């Protein structure tokens, strides 16, 4: 593996890597604004300037500058080494790079930071980026001085509505062009560009267009300062009150990795941020997916109901027991859900297939939708592959509707409320639904038991490529909800069986043993503790 030296440390790099990329792989940060690992490098912020020592025998590249001599008050001509942007220079074998160890680099960073803050508005108290802002972090680490300008800062348009989702603030913008490059290179819709020159620079939307499409939230995500903000998150929460959980988007079968930010004081989820995963979503997420965090709170089933009336979970389980008294197993149908985790589906399969010995397994989920070739998948369920692995012979929901209409099935235990087809005939059957969200199935149900959403319990989801990914628990269960696999254990007990699972560890151990696990998948949980 070829290597180069950075501040005396040996850094391996892959051919084609820039200095900053190779350092980033090792966890060493060279400060930057405009560079992003998923975008091209324009080298316009000049924050990543490093000193590259010349090869032996070569003259260093020097610049002639004028420096103020403090004692005489006059400008004297001196030479300083020319610094190179680490985001643009490709790493070469044997290169010697000085970053934190060089006084010239420290001075350059201080000056760049001073220039970036020169016309910056005093917006920290009202800026959403506060607490996760690179200007703040780098000022404290690399600058620590007051700017020397005494004039009024330049004023630019503030709170410009770019589109249905994004608001732009010209004064906060550092003109890194990350948003421009993102829309151009990743979203393939070059609707943003820079106009004017010098200190009147601003970003604008192409005339006649708005910043719309399916990836507008990512412009806010790449913006290193508070210039681009989403209308969804603006002024909602301060980031230092938010905790983070590593989650998986439930919007479609791509299974983008996310950070779910929530406030534990009021147990609310506030936003998603994409989590980097080279193999799944690289660095991005789509707008629809970014907004699915709201599903943790909207349309939720939080209390048990029997025949539409709210009851306690215990009373509902009693109703389930009474409902299934003396019912022959061949007339019971079990509906797995492609929107629920492997653990939940496994529990239902155990109940149906193993404990009750039934062969009537069906699957449900959401209907297909929009797809594109960047991230969005047609299948809007996050765990279709998982259910397919657990129950390869399960039939579609339409088959269940038909079976209920013919009278072959008259008792149903279902997971999840969503259904891709019309389920009104199910009202003629006795349906127990364990669901987190309301939907056609919960409307048709006799007994509804409240399950926790994906954000409230740790669950495994298999995406369209067959990769198992775990979404960690973030919120505390709301209302009377419990994880679906636990509710199904209670249902099993109510029906007179002894479930083999009471703890998550047990579910996971048995889950690894069953179902064709893709052993080469990197996200595979290899131990129950994951």
């Amino acid at each position, binding site marked *: 593996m070829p290597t180069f030296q950075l501040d005396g440390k040996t850094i391996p790099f892959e051919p084609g890597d820039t200095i900053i990329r190779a350092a980033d792989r090792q966890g060493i940060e060279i400060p930057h604004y405009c560079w992003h690992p998923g975008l091209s490098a324009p080298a316009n912020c000049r924050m990543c300037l490093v000193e590259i020592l010349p090869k032996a025998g070569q003259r260093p590249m020097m610049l002639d500058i004028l420096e103020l001599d403090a004692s005489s008050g006059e400008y004297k001509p001196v030479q300083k080494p020319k610094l190179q942007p680490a985001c643009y220079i490709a790493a070469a074998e044997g290169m010697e790079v000085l970053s934190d160890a060089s006084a010239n680099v420290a001075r350059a960073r201080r000056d760049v930071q001073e220039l970036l803050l020169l016309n910056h508005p005093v917006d920290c108290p009202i800026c959403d980026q506060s*607490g996760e802002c690179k200007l703040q972090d780098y000022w404290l680490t690399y600058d620590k001085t007051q700017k020397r300008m005494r004039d009024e800062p330049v004023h630019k348009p503030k709170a410009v509505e770019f589109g249905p989702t994004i608001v732009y603030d010209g004064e906060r913008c550092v003109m890194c062009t990350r948003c421009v490059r993102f829309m151009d290179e990743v979203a393939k819709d070059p609707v943003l560009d820079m106009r004017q020159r010098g200190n009147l620079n601003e970003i604008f939307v192409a005339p006649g267009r708005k910043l719309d499409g399916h990836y507008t939230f990512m412009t806010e995500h790449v913006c290193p300062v508070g210039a681009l903000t989403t209308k969804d998150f603006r002024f909602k929460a*301060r*980031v*230092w*009150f*938010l*905790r983070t*959980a590593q989650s998986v988007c439930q919007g479609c079968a791509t299974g983008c990795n996310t950070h779910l930010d929530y406030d*534990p*004081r009021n147990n609310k989820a506030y936003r998603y941020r994409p989590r980097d995963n080279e193999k799944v979503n690289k660095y991005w997420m789509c707008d629809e997916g970014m907004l699915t965090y709201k599903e943790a709170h909207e349309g939720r089933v939080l209390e048990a109901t029997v025949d539409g009336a709210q009851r306690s979970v215990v009373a509902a389980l009693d109703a389930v027991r009474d409902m299934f008294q003396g019912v022959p197993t061949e007339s019971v149908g079990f509906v797995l859900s492609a929107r629920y985790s492997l653990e939940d589906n496994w529990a239902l399969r155990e109940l149906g297939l193993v404990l009750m010995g039934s062969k009537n397994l069906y699957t449900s989920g959401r209907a297909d939708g929009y797809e594109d070739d960047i991230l969005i998948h047609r299948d809007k369920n996050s765990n279709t592959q998982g259910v397919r692995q657990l129950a390869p012979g399960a039939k579609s929901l339409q088959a269940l509707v038909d079976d209920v209409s013919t009278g072959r099935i008259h008792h149903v235990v279902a997971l999840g409320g969503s259904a891709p087809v019309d389920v009104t005939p199910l009202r003629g059957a006795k349906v127990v639904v364990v669901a987190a969200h309301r939907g056609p199935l919960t409307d048709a149900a006799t007994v509804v038991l409240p399950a*926790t959403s994906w954000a409230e*319990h*740790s669950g495994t989801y298999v995406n369209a490529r067959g990769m198992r990914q775990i979404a*960690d*628990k973030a919120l505390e*269960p709301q209302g009377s909800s*419990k*994880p679906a*696999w*636990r509710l199904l254990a209670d249902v099993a007990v109510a029906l007179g069986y002894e479930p083999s699972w009471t*703890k*998550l*560890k047990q579910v*996971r151990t048995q889950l690894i043993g069953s179902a064709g696990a893709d052993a080469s998948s990197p996200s595979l949980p290899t131990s*129950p*503790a*994951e």
Partner: protein
Amino acid sequence: MSQLVLDKLRARFGASVLETHSDFGDDTAVVSPDVWRAVGEFLRRDPALDFDLPVDLCGVDYPDREPRMEVVLHLYSVSRRHRVRVKARVGDAEMDGAELDSLVSIWPGLNWLEREVFDMSGVRFRGHPDLRRILMYPEFEGHPLQKTYPAQRTQPLVPYRTEEEAGLPLEKQAPFGPDEGMPFGRRPLPPPRAEDG
């Protein structure tokens, strides 16, 4: 700061001195728990060291490490005017095996300090004449200065009144909610372990 103390410790105890450093000018040695008492005797009796004043004994919890509880002893010599910090690490993730020999027979002043370390951090001292809680009341459960003990937990000896007794809605019972009082974004939480759901 002279290295005399650390050199003599290393010379005498060899491999039982696991680490030494002198960060910020304080000579520190991490020793293995089984030589705790021997190290204490040596520091007290050796005429060149003569550590006669026991300054402080405390516990610091590092739950990410194993062993997790670090017991820190500071000593001072009035005659020689030098100091040393001696540490030993005990206890696994569940605080099993968190035991050390008591040094009360060498320095009587450690009597109350060892009781405090037991009370606050849960480390037992073998041979202590009277190892019981000192700062907390005897019915207290748990050891408050362990990182796993939640700061907002209350254990009232007289139970708080219920809403029926109060006659008005009581929003919270603990003195403050789990994340009130400070922006906790400062300290990252430990990664979640696979709890039950």
